[in-house]
């Protein structure tokens, strides 16, 4: 290829520099995480107790990472999914029902449940893209409808609260860690079996948004619907796909919580909504769409759980707990802002 301009204007590359390392928001979160762990350990050495704290905390983190990813999937568009909790509940119900009625193995039950979650998400996406009604309104209405449906269904199919029998393998997923599996006298680390599920989910979502065409086009749609449409992106389809992904991940989170609780029950997902926003937003995902951070979501979920566990160990009351978590988050978010502004200023002076 020939350059038509005899000499292209030199880009002032030598003068170009990116923002300093300390301005990376993910690094800030990592530092915060380390500080919190040190702090809690100093106050309560039992914070590092493997069986008492670390193993259950990893299981919880796994759930809330996936919950965060479920919200992240639509934040990418600048949308919201107010029904993450109920989509999780419906998925979990489908899993329990599949086992109860068909007796199928765990993997099949889970796939059926995930399909239900994805289907609900796709439905929300379809309504949003067809009618142009705000995602907040559509998913809130869906959530409202599903609240009723979930309790009706559980009342019909079970004792009203949870399924009596769980598929084989669920118990092992809950109680075992890799430390229980040994080859000779080499045993695995004390990591619950569900952790890899969350990790793989996070990696796949990261891969999707970073390197796949579908994921990138979803982000571009989030950045500007008009420009996306005029760049040939099938905007409607991308909206449906992002919401379907959100539903699927909600379902996965529902499954992980069911594993931790030991049963598919009606209460699954009740506490998902706030954490679903906290993890990605704390991790630097924008509410306006166009940019997501999977690593940030992972760190955000971890920090939230660490604070929760730590304050719990310090015997805070539930209400106090919420208050402090709220305060810590506000401080973290403002620090993030301050750091960003400082970095820009410094960059601008260079």
């Amino acid at each position, binding site marked *: *290829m020939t*350059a*038509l*301009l*005899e000499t*292209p*204007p030199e*880009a*002032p*590359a030598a*003068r*170009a*520099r*990116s*923002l300093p390392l300390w301005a990376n928001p993910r690094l800030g979160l990592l530092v915060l995480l380390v500080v919190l762990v040190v702090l809690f350990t100093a106050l309560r050495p039992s914070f590092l107790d493997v069986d008492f704290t670390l193993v259950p905390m990893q299981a919880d983190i796994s759930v809330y990472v996936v919950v965060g990813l479920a919200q992240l999937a639509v934040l990418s568009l600048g949308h919201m999914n107010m029904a993450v909790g109920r989509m999780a509940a419906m998925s979990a119900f489908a899993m329990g029902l599949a086992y109860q009625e068909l007796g199928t193995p765990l993997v099949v039950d889970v796939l059926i449940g995930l399909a239900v979650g994805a289907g609900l998400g796709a439905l929300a996406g379809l309504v949003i893209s067809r009618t142009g009604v705000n995602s907040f309104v559509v998913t809130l209405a869906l959530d409202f409808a599903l609240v009723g449906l979930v309790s009706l269904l559980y009342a019909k199919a079970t004792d009203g609260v949870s399924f009596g029998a769980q598929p084989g393998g669920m118990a092992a997923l809950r109680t075992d860690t890799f430390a229980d599996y040994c080859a000779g006298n080499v045993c695995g680390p004390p990591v619950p079996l569900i952790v890899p599920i969350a990790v793989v989910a996070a990696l796949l979502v990261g*891969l999707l948004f970073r*390197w*796949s*065409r579908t994921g*990138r*086009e979803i*982000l*571009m749609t989030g*950045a*500007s619907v*008009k*420009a*996306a*449409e*005029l*760049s*040939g*992106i*099938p905007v409607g389809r991308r909206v449906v796909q992002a919401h379907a992904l959100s539903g699927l991940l909600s379902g996965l989170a529902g499954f992980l919580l069911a594993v931790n609780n030991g049963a598919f029950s009606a209460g699954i997902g009740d506490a998902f909504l706030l954490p679903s926003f906290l993890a990605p937003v704390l991790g630097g995902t924008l509410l306006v769409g*166009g*940019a997501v951070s999977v690593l940030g979501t992972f760190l955000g979920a971890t920090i939230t759980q660490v604070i929760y566990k730590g304050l719990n160990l310090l015997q805070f009351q539930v209400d106090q707990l919420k208050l402090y978590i709220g305060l810590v988050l506000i401080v973290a978010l403002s620090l993030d802002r301050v750091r960003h502004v400082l970095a*820009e200023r410094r*960059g*601008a*002076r*260079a």
Partner: protein
Amino acid sequence: MILSASGLVKTFPGVRALDGASLSLAAGSVHALLGENGAGKSTLVKILTGVYRPDGGTIELDGKPVHFTGPLDALRAGIGVVHQERNLVTEFSVAENIVLHHLPRRFGVVRRSRVRDEARRCLDLLDLDLDPDAPVSTLSVAQAQLVEIAKALSVDNRVLLLDEPTASLTGDEADRLYAIVRKLTGSGHAVVLVSHKLEEVFAVADTVTVLRDGRSVAEGQPLSAYTRDEVVDLMVGRAHAAVSLAARTPLSSDAAALSLTDVATSYGHADVSFDVAPGEIYGLYGLVGAGRTELAKALLGLGSVTAGTVSVHGTPVRISGVGEALRRHRIGYVTENRKEEGLFLEQPITRNIGVTVWHRLTRLGLIRDRAEASLVDDYRQRLGIRLATPKQLAGQLSGGNQQKVSLAKWLAADCGILIVDEPTVGIDVRTKAAFHELIAGLAGQGMAILLISSDLPEIVTLADRIGVMAGFRLRGELPNDGDYERMSQSIIRLIHTPLIPAAPH
């Protein structure tokens, strides 16, 4: 000197936009501010109007140093401006936008009728037939530009800075603006004019400052001391080679790539018929509001074709969107509205260019960043896109460089038919020539090109045939003989001949 600035420095992350620029402005004169894309013209304008604060240098108003704390501060000091990028509040009406900074109020309540009267007066100055109550979001790019000018004229400012005010206007509208400018300078006002349309600049400006890489290389000299070529040499920094387009023989071909027969649209077009052959450049000219952009949008399914047939390579089609146009028919569309439709301002340049071609850059379903980077680098060189790093956000580029990015993604898309709508708005002289060569080259390889442009010299330079549109109808079609004077006269005549009602069949 009413206004003078010296030694201005302004640095953005990775770029020194101004590096000791100076400018001085005398009362009663039109001062041209010239330079290539990214030279720092808009940055200078923004500093003089309080949008940015300089990192160094001084500004003096009537000989006294001033430090503007914000845009309103500068406005109060009597400095009006039309920025390169539109700044209208799209939800507000035309009238509200025009009087935004001095809404007529009584007891804190906005007086609607006064707002409308005041707006009418400003619109009349420009001979602009717009509904003052229409929301700005319904305006075309050119109409929005005119409203922006009306807004600047609504206050009697001693100094008026115009940053590419005529970029999306045709000669007629520009002439009207310049008539007002002359009236203003006649009564002692001072005007700064930034423009890449050198013909206009030479016609209206008295003195000139040329910026190169953020420095003033010519400062305040009378423009008459230079020839057009000398000015371009100053902008470029050395003698530039004049580019002349190689003669092109349109491929003779029976099947038109794109053909319209008696097309009517939801926008109100009627009886539009023309066709574009492979290897041909078909120019579509018309005044602001003639319906050219709308026609393109209807063809692509963004509006709808309500009667008649659109055929692509002989097959009648009904296209439902740009995605379908691109993937099924290999039709590309470069929008005239780069800010809202052409660019993802908050996304990196790489993604802005890669977006139309990602499907070609994947391996195992994943996009190869390396391939994307080399594609971007290729177009950076071809179009001379001046950037700090390819990861820079598109919104941080200078206006002209943004336009190049918006073009690049469609040049990369490998289309058989390309509709380009005002492709060289805001692009500097040298790049414009390079772009013309590029477009001619693409046509030479068999691409069919529909060129919508308000830039008559551009159409006469490039087009094989010229369709003239007015009032959402095609008024006629002329073979282009390349003679600018003759062509422009025939075109003007076509635009102004009244429509003969079609005979009933």
